[in-house]
């Protein structure tokens, strides 16, 4: 399957008063067309920053981004406009991602107006089509965000992202702020849209269960570093990196008869400002040793299963 999106050694650093913040540090992976890549991690892992850098909402500090085989890391403004039509984003917070003073219709129509390719009547028709595509009733066209529920607002966000037929959508925690029953509706909607329109998703979430459900492949991030990546089912069957193992074991389960050995990590999630070299998880890892403080490389340990840990084989008896 050809890769639609590929990143190589992508870096994004921010200058802060306390020092250089390594939000995304040397991340590489590729996403095949029509598939969903799950990016999981906890606070400070850089997953949201990663999403924004890939779709050019933020400028990368280093590394490269490829779209449909072309290097799109540095683009001039004309290419940027075109790129932005192919890559869209759905935000986490349904309350702040919509302009409170614009109606549903105005919000969805805006990308159509900006593209300049639609006449007025076509815009209205296209907006109507998008509204029903996301399962929203047409009578909400003139409603303002504060009149809608969280799930309905999120549908508007999806409709806005779908205008202009993008190929790639970054979903930044799209269901984390929603109630359980509404979460299921939106996740099903996203799956349906992917099947109908051949969309490719990068699905960012801190919720492993959601990632397992939606993603074909998963990247696990910790403080800006990519620590493990593999197909979804494989990751949960054989989590190899000590952090992934702790993460998976930490998820509370509704299966009350499952006897789980819970790995409790010591210490706190450290800050990505001015980090020390080597594996950033080492300080909390029970297998920590001297080589952990050298830069770690992502190695293919099992078929299609990459891990960045110098002791991965011995920890997992491979």
């Amino acid at each position: 399957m050809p890769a639609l999106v590929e990143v190589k050694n992508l870096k994004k650093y921010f200058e802060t008063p306390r020092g250089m913040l390594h939000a995304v540090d040397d991340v590489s992976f590729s996403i095949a067309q029509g598939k969903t890549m799950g990016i999981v991690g906890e606070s400070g892992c850089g997953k949201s920053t990663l999403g924004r850098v890939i779709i050019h909402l933020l400028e990368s500090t280093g590394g490269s981004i490829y779209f449909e085989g072309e290097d799109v890391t540095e683009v001039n403004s004309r290419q940027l406009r075109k790129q932005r039509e192919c890559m869209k984003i759905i935000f986490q917070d349904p309350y702040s991602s919509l302009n409170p003073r614009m109606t549903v219709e105005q919000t969805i129509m805006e990308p159509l107006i900006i593209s300049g390719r639609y006449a007025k009547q076509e815009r209205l028709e296209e907006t109507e089509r998008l509204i029903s595509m996301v399962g929203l009733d047409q009578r909400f066209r003139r409603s303002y965000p504060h009149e809608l529920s969280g799930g309905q607002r999120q549908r508007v966000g999806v409709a806005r992202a779908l205008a202009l037929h993008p190929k790639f959508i970054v979903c930044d925690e799209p269901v984390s702020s929603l109630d359980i029953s509404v979460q299921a509706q939106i996740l099903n909607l996203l799956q349906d849209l992917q099947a109908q329109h051949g969309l490719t998703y990068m699905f960012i979430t801190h919720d492993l269960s959601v990632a397992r459900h939606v993603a074909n492949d998963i990247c696990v991030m910790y403080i800006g570093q990519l620590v493990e990546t593999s197909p979804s089912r494989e990751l949960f069957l054989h989590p190899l990196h000590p952090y992934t193992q702790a993460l998976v074991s930490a998820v509370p389960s509704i299966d009350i008869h499952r006897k789980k050995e819970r790995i409790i990590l010591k210490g706190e999630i450290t800050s990505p400002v001015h980090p020390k070299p080597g594996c950033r998880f080492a300080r909390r890892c029970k297998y920590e040793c001297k080589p952990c403080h050298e830069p770690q490389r992502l190695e293919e340990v099992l078929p299609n299963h990459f891990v960045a840990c110098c002791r991965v084989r011995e920890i997992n008896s491979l």
Partner: protein
Amino acid sequence: MVNTVTAEGKPVKTKRQSEFGIVARRLAKNSSAVIGFGLALILVLMAIFAPLIAPYAYDQQDLLNSRAAPSGEHLFGTDELGRDVFSRIVWGSRFSLSIGFLAVLFSSSVGMLLGAIAGFFGKVVDDIIMRLMDVIQSIPGILLAIAISVVLGPGIFNTLLALGFGGITMACRLTRAAVLRVRNEEYLEAAISINASTARIILRHVLPNSFAPVLVSATMMIGGIIMAAAMLSFIGLGVQPPTPEWGSMIAGGRSLIRTCPWMVTFPGIFIMLTVLAFNMFGDGLRDALDPKLKK
């Protein structure tokens, strides 16, 4: 509140409300805001229908009847030139209120634009604009108005500029603060992601969501501007006689305050009522806009 079920579920009921409607309802429940609004409305109506209400022209002199105390013929008495004080007050409302509105409009628009630019672009632009505001603000308001008035000379337009200039800083700071808050909202990122130009982002997304605090401060500034206009006239700047601006009426009657107190008292009362009306309404408006509906 809306209680509906989406296309898949069974619909229950829809009750639509615009944001304006919600704010209006909240205002209606606030008694002091209602009183303030009512009072302001009366004053505005008085200004609009001045020709119908005032029994005399504002410059109609009747030297034989000058300095007359309030009576059936002259409700508020006459001034030193025999002009009917009541008529002058009624006509004067046109001048005083329009000065108030227009000066505030001027300072709010200029202030909002500067504040939006400062807040949105940040860094050097922000520094320059805010230091400019600091300079303007470091001069006490009335002195600034006097200085500009002296430089520009008399006349309504120049008075407007002089009075409105100091208010720019307030509108600018309020807008800048609101813009800084809005800048972190995700719908701005969304606008960038759909290729919106910077101009579009500022005009369509930033400004409409930042003007509420300016609206409140503007209503309350009206009272202050009218007072300042009165002060300018009092010291001989700004509006000149025979224009019946309330402040200049007080100035004119100053020397006769012991013998003809009505010449000073009535204009004073009307200035007070205007300031009160707009302040009460502005207070209520702030409360009504304040907890924005966020579920």
